[in-house]
């Protein structure tokens, strides 16, 4: 029985979507209310005992781009539609995590939809190692985790405002400095076109 079938038989109604890429990975999106239970089931029933990582995704395209725009050029059209990746989704934010089975040597990537500044259940009771990962996700995306024992900032100073990994958080280092890639070649005086100008001067 494949991993997905087994998972479906255990928490069937909680699986929102899934995707298998053969000889690659398995993505499963679960419903928010089943987030902790999924971890519990995977660990206890299916041998996914190894906690790999937990993080989040902001699927909104960055409104700032790469700050590599020539102001003289016309700005390229920007697509602002939010488009989720593998295994779909309905919200701008998703929490994703990966578990690994040391017996079968397969991993599974779990995703869950979460509202902007919303919350999902914490995994700390299931995987103690999720503690720091959830703290990081909380400070970087503003997603909170209910049941987390100690949701404090991990990297940033205590009075830091904003959540840096959200796409609407500007990367100031790229904004305060002008892009050095702007073409700065002075044309020949009084000429619009190089070739013609050459001929005239002759």
């Amino acid at each position: 029985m494949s991993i997905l079938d087994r998972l479906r038989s255990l928490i069937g109604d909680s699986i929102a979507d899934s995707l298998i890429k053969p000889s690659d990975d398995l993505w499963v999106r679960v419903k928010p209310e089943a987030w902790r239970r999924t971890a519990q089931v995977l660990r206890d029933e299916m041998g996914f005992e190894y906690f790999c990582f937990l993080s989040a995704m902001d699927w909104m395209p960055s409104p700032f781009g790469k700050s590599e725009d020539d102001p003289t050029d016309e700005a390229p059209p920007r697509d602002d539609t939010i488009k989720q990746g593998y295994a779909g989704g309905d919200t701008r934010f998703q929490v994703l995590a990966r578990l690994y089975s040391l017996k079968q040597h397969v991993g599974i990537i779990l995703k869950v939809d979460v509202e902007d500044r919303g919350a999902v259940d914490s995994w700390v009771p299931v995987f103690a190692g999720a503690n720091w990962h959830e703290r990081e996700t909380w400070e970087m995306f503003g997603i909170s985790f209910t049941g987390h024992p100690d949701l404090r900032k991990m990297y940033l100073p205590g009075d830091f405002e904003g959540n840096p990994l959200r796409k609407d958080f500007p990367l100031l280092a790229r904004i305060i400095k002008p892009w050095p890639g702007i073409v700065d070649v002075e044309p020949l005086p009084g000429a619009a076109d190089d070739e013609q100008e050459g001929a005239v001067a002759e």
Partner: protein
Amino acid sequence: MTATTSGQVISDRQQLAYIASQAADARVNVELETEGMTLNIGPQHPATHGTLRIIARLDGEQVIWAEPSAGYMHRGYEKLTEVRSFPQVTALINRIDWLGSFANEVPFILAAEKLMGIEAPPRAQYIRTILFELSRIANVTLFLGDLGVQLGAITPVFFAFRDREYALNLIEAATGGRFHPNFDRIGGLKDDLPKGWIDEAKATMKKMKQFCDTIEDLLFGNEIFQIRTRGIGVIPKDVAMSYGLSGANARASGIDWDLRRDQTLPMAWDKADWKVITHPAGDSFARCWVRLQETREACSIVEQLVDNIPAGPIMAKVPRIVKVPEGEAWVSTENPLGEMGYYVVSKGDTGPFRVKIRSASFNNISITPWLLKGVFVPDIITILASLYFILGDIDR
């Protein structure tokens, strides 16, 4: 804390330390008892090689609780990757684990290649694997020397710096960068090996094996070292797994798991004959010992592979400006510090949409609040040294 209630065997010493720490906890609340002392170890402290800060509450010299506080070196790599193209990200992620930089590039490039559906030619795979193992040697060599310093022996670190230089010279001769090779490209490698490199590599591997012997005699064989590390900081198997410990730390707890062996990647590890080293004890000594043996194994992998590098190109056919197709990919490899993985999300642009960097030290160090309970101040240092972290790998 969680996860102690499992059926795992915990050493007597740790059990005693636990009881003592519980007692210490209780005593603080009782009137007329000694007041605890909060000791800030770091961010500027000789033992934290980097800027990790450990806040420890002490009763005498015993730790009641300890909490690492990271972030003094957070560089926001995950954010920076969003505005960079794939080759630029490669240059950046060199700096995550700066002692074994080449190993950082490999999983990222493999993830990008996976998304593009291409594979590096066999010659590139071999050279990648060799350089990967060389960076492991360079990394762990310094660990072995630094271990001595943390325990008060000053000589091993000089031996380590002396002999690591040979490995670094080798990396530099091939890639041009001592610490930050930036040699991997999507589809292969930047350049081929220079002439005479293979012979040099063989000679160097002999020296590195000799270094391992020296350290084993000078440090590991020393009775003082043994009583300082044996039975200290014991991590049982299930705790290790729930905290996501990887690499030598996991293998020292008896978890027989090595990503070089247990997954199929377009790399050349399966072409060499080597074994995964495990140790059942789970204590500081086991972690150090496993790393020492792994360095030897890495030397033998390099020795075997350099002889069999197949001829051929080192680059697959890749367009000049790389645009990676839309998709998501996860690739992790067995880096010197443990499992290092990248979750790369691409939207079909020249740069990634998001990169989640799963670095080994982050998980490895997150166990410290659990592990440091009840130990003595000098043991904080040995435990941290044996867990082996690179600050860039925690903070990214």
